[in-house]
């Protein structure tokens, strides 16, 4: 505690500095034009010190944690001391500090009497940045040059003067310039708020006090992180998981492999062994791989550790260049969200080996991206982009959540009625699907399906889904969830579609997506029969599956558990299964030596 000069003043400073980051985030929220920012909260704000070290990040999107320092480092590399009051920087180039092209960074250096004390930082996912597919999110581009406008670190404002050339370049290269400009203004407004409030902070604490307490804020987060890490066991744990394919080389799985090494109060997250970068647009930047790594580790640390550089100091992330976790030019990366999600699954797997009682099984695999775009008869464009996910893996103490955003991207769903009022789309179903959740003492989250009917003449449907061939794993005896599904016209031809696709749709076509079920945790034969009964009663589990997976026999006339029949059934299943030991990880359904006997009348 001796490091903190005045603990009271420090606490007050820390409150203020995080309040600035949050207030920036609320400014974006209040002034944005687009649903991506408002509903999906796909943006982040923060305050860094004069050297670009992150002091405070607002509470919006875990997927962006770690992105600001990388982007600021690039600004520093390019401009060094060629920077002055009134400058504002803009950039989105994934190979020069960015993440993927829709994420545009806007930074403003903040000065006090000529000295640079801080940076206000914002990053927002924009509705469209041009490229070959509307929404700039396509998973089937094979090089960055097809994905849209690539902006190197540039001065959008120089000494307070707007560079109109940059704005014109943007305007002529994106599909909805009004929205993009509206959201850029939101980012500038957030930087302006930060500048004003930071000046008040400097007035109160003085420039030296401000510098000292910014450093302290980082050190404080580092102390909290290290204190928490020190309580975890030392050692090394590895885990692997797969993405089905990249949507270009169909059926060719992509391996993600992580090793976590923990010594004392330091952790290393090493992705060496991960698949080389791929043709499809799912290559991560290192900053995104870092965010996925931090997300996993943070979920086993106590709540309330501030988001800043101090956390990064205690967690090293390694990923060799040229891999799918650290792509190099000309890797396409627009749809790299998928790789980030699978990396968090991988992190949970590795952490579950380290801390069996603390970590959840695999969820549905993260967002499925569905976009439908085209032109109305009057040639005006429409772009409908939906990211949806919702089944959490089971926890060692509770079922997985049904219908809840993935931890890596805390997004909200769009209202169906608003979608129907604004887009040539109808939703025909948005509901849970029974018998897909992985069985377990605690079952995985129940997935849902969404049916989209297209009601314009013609459009392009683009889907990025996964977890078809490689199911969400179960842990410590829990079964994996059932795979995801895609269909065209389920009530007609019911054609099975691949996990990743781009196709033309016509008026009346219905696309159905069913999420993968989440993995279970613990032996299903130990699940409380009352919990099984509840799921059957709620039609999330069929009586047949209750008996086959859980050995629970239910009297559906009276809604009761048949106790003796259940005991007998469970004993038979236990014998037929004959686990030498409880399997730590299950990626396929458990195998029974003898086929289980036919169902008896209760």
């Amino acid at each position, binding site marked *: *505690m001796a490091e*903190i000069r005045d*603990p*009271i003043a420090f*606490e*007050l400073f820390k*409150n*203020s500095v995080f*309040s600035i980051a*949050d*207030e920036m985030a*609320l400014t974006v*929220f209040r*002034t944005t*034009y687009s*649903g991506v920012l*408002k509903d999906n909260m796909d943006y982040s704000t923060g305050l860094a010190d004069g050297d670009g070290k992150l002091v405070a990040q*607002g*509470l*919006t999107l*875990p997927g962006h944690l770690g992105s600001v320092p990388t982007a600021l480092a690039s600004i520093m590399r390019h401009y060094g001391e060629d920077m002055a009051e009134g400058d504002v920087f803009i950039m989105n180039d994934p190979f020069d500090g960015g993440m993927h092209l829709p994420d545009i960074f806007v930074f403003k250096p903040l000065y006090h009497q000529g000295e640079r004390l801080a940076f206000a930082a914002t990053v927002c996912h924009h509705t469209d940045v041009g490229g070959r597919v509307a929404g700039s999110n396509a998973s089937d581009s094979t090089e960055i040059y097809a994905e849209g406008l690539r902006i190197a670190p540039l001065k959008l404002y120089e000494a307070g003067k707007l560079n109109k050339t940059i704005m014109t370049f943007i305007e002529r290269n994106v599909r909805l310039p*009004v929205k993009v400009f509206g959201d850029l*203004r939101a980012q500038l*407004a957030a930087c302006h708020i930060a500048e004003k409030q930071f000046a008040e902070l400097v007035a109160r604490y003085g420039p030296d006090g401000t510098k000292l307490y910014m450093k302290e804020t980082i050190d*404080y987060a580092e*102390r*909290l992180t290290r*204190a928490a890490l020190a309580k975890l066991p030392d050692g090394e744990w590895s885990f692997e998981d797969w993405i089905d394919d990249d949507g270009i080389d169909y059926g060719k799985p992509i391996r993600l492999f992580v090793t976590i090494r923990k010594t004392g109060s330091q952790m290393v997250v090493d992705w060496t062994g991960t698949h080389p970068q791929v043709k499809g647009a799912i290559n991560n930047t290192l900053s995104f791989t870092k965010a996925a790594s931090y997300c996993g580790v*943070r*979920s086993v*640390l106590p709540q*309330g550790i501030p988001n800043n550089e101090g956390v990064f100091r205690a967690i090293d992330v390694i990923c060799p260049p040229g891999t799918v976790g650290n792509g190099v030019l000309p890797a396409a990366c627009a749809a790299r969200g998928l790789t980030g999600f699978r990396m968090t699954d991988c992190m949970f797997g590795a952490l579950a080996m380290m801390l069996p009682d603390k970590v959840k099984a695999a969820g549905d695999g993260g967002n499925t991206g569905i976009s439908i775009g085209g032109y109305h008869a009057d040639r005006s464009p429409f772009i409908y982009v939906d990211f949806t*996910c*919702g089944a959490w893996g089971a926890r060692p*103490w*509770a079922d997985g*959540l049904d*219908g*809840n*955003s993935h*931890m890596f991207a*805390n*997004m*909200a769903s769009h*209202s*169906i*009625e*608003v979608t*129907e*009022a*604004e887009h040539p789309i*109808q939703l*025909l*179903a*948005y*509901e849970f699907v029974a018998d897909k959740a992985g069985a377990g003492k605690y079952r995985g989250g129940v997935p*849902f399906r969404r049916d989209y009917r297209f009601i314009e003449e013609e459009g392009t449907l683009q889907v990025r889904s996964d977890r078809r061939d490689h199911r969400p794993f179960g842990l410590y005896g829990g079964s994996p969830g059932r795979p995801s599904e895609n269909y065209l016209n389920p009530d007609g031809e019911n054609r099975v579609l691949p996990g990743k696709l781009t196709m033309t749709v016509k008026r009346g076509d219905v696309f159905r997506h069913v999420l993968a079920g989440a993995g279970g945790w613990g032996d299903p034969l130990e699940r409380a029969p009352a919990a099984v009964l509840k799921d059957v*009663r*709620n*039609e999330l589990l069929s009586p047949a599956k209750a008996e086959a997976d859980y050995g629970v026999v239910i009297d559906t006339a009276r809604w009761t558990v048949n106790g003796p029949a259940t005991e007998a059934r469970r004993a038979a299943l236990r014998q037929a299964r004959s686990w030498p030991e409880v399997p730590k990880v299950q990626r396929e359904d458990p195998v029974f030596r003898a086929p289980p006997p036919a169902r008896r009348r209760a």
Partner: protein
Amino acid sequence: MITYRVGVDIGGTFTDIVLLGQDGTIHTAKISSSVGNYADAIVEGLTQLFQETGLDGSVLEEIRHGTTVASNAILEHKGARTGLITTKGFRDILEIRTLRMPRLYDIAWTKPPPLVERYLRQVVDERIDAHGTVERALSAADAERAVSGLLAEKVEAIAVCLINSFTNPVHELMIADIVRKRAPALPLSVSYEVLPEIKEYERTSTVVVNAYVMPIVSGYLRALRRGLDEAGIPARLLLMQSNGGLTTDTAAAERPMNIIESGPAGGVIGAQALARAKGLKKILTFDMGGTTAKASMVEDGEVTRAAEYSVGAGIMIGSRLLTGAGYTLKVPAIDLAEVGAGGGSLVWIDAGGSLQIGPESAGAAPGPVCYDKGGETPTVTDANVILGYINPLHLVGGALKLNAGKAKTSFAEKVAKPLGMAVELAAYGAHQIAASNMIRAIKSVSTERGRDPREFALFAFGGNGPLFACGMARALSMSRIVVPPSAGLFSSFGLLYADVEHHYARTFRRLLRKADLAEIEAAWTALARQAREQLKIEGFAGPKARLRRSASLHYQGQSYELTVPMPDGPIDAAMVVHLEEAFGREHEKTYGHRAGPEEPVELVAMQVIGMGLRDGVGVPEQVRSSRIEPSPPPPRPAYFGPETGWLETPVLRRSDLAGTRAGPLIVEEYDATCVVPPGARASLDTAGNIVIEL
């Protein structure tokens, strides 16, 4: 004969009753809330006041009531066994919610359980499109089947919410008809009738909450009415709504969704009235009790309202950015920011060596260390006792004895020593950090909405509000603080200032320039008729019924709307021009720019507020408590920070504040303590408010 109006506010631990006579006399009572039977507590409290004052039920003209009965039923999941009927394919809208959660990185997050279990959610095979066209007609047989299914499950209430029903209610009304025929007495909540607005999750959730609390609220109001009648109190009963307006007990029983956040509204409305009377255009209200602190903004005499909020979301710890907790209600409510900071909040040191306050609270049991009832962890109240702000011997006029020595020992050992500071410095730090946490609530209703708190006066009430107000105002560079009379009972006192008010809204999407204006006119007229009819039932007709209209608009293609007030008059071309211009101006104010005249403006929703204007004058300008103030305690040393150190500080009664007095001083009252630091000046205005200038 002097007649009285009554304000009754039920809190978690205390029920506060205020009787206000036409002559400005106030009688107050603070009694323990008998959990499980709040109605009895009210009748008992009134009876007790009658005994003390010699009054009887015949002099009461009106009882105004703020209640947490509905929100408690939701928090404790003790509402009705409710069934829901919805469109096939959308059985799980209620449970899937918006997917977002209020916590990041939290594996242990648990969603609030749905208020209707899945097996009580019936679907019907029907479909209406976004424009109101019936794509798939609902068959009578299918509707009957769904209703029968729920009745067979012995549900105690039914909610009905179909996709796109706000554009065409035909199928919902068909189902409602069947329910009303088959089970006429069963509480029924139909989305088109209670909330004809777009967004299926928000609408479903609201309609379900309404049904879920209906039997509880109507049962409670019936019991209360019966109790009042038996005690010879014929006065009519009005309920405070979440929006700050009053409604009758009958209307509240039919639409209990409007009274869920009834509790905290009274104080804000009271502050609004006092501010109007003082000619203050901009105030921030600050209400701090034992476990939480709440802030809100009143601007140009108007309270700010949120169009939707969550009930049971827990206390905002850091940020308004994180949503997804609790149960969503799309009903206008006074916009309050709440933080978990009160007198009972625990003071502790975290793993990083930082001093922290709350959000855990010592509650009523064991309470702060100084209560000497077994509490061992220091609290904010203990810090205030050490600093000399709170009377070291007792609280609530002597009803609660304190042990200051114990507070000091515990603070020294658990906070001061680990931090390596003197005990008063540590206590002062804890006081400041508690203030800084509460400042976040104030900021979230001011700076986060683009308002500069320096332009506002701080209205402080609740038992602890006046104790922290000056320090907080100073940190925010605010220069004026107002502490109203009966500050500790202000939530019930404020009820006396409220008016009858009903809010109606409807989604109605049309491009203004291309719209059939007669159609818009008709829709608006229908809403106005609804408002007028309700007011008429409550005895407000002719000039006593006033309507206000507003419109929510956006540029075509925008995802979000802005709401602008709409003048009276026909919906014609001139009105369209007016609305487009008003929207453009509001857009510029909010976003800093507006589009050119070529951008078409779309009407998204229409609103009508119906107000019942009361007879004669409202609250008398001067009020005085009938409670005899005891002679004040002697001066005591109080600590105001390292620069001034300990200062001998006079302790006064409110009535002793003749002329302007310079701080430091402490105003000690039965229900609250007000601290005026050095450098501040305090005086009493004609309305009995303490006004402090910094």
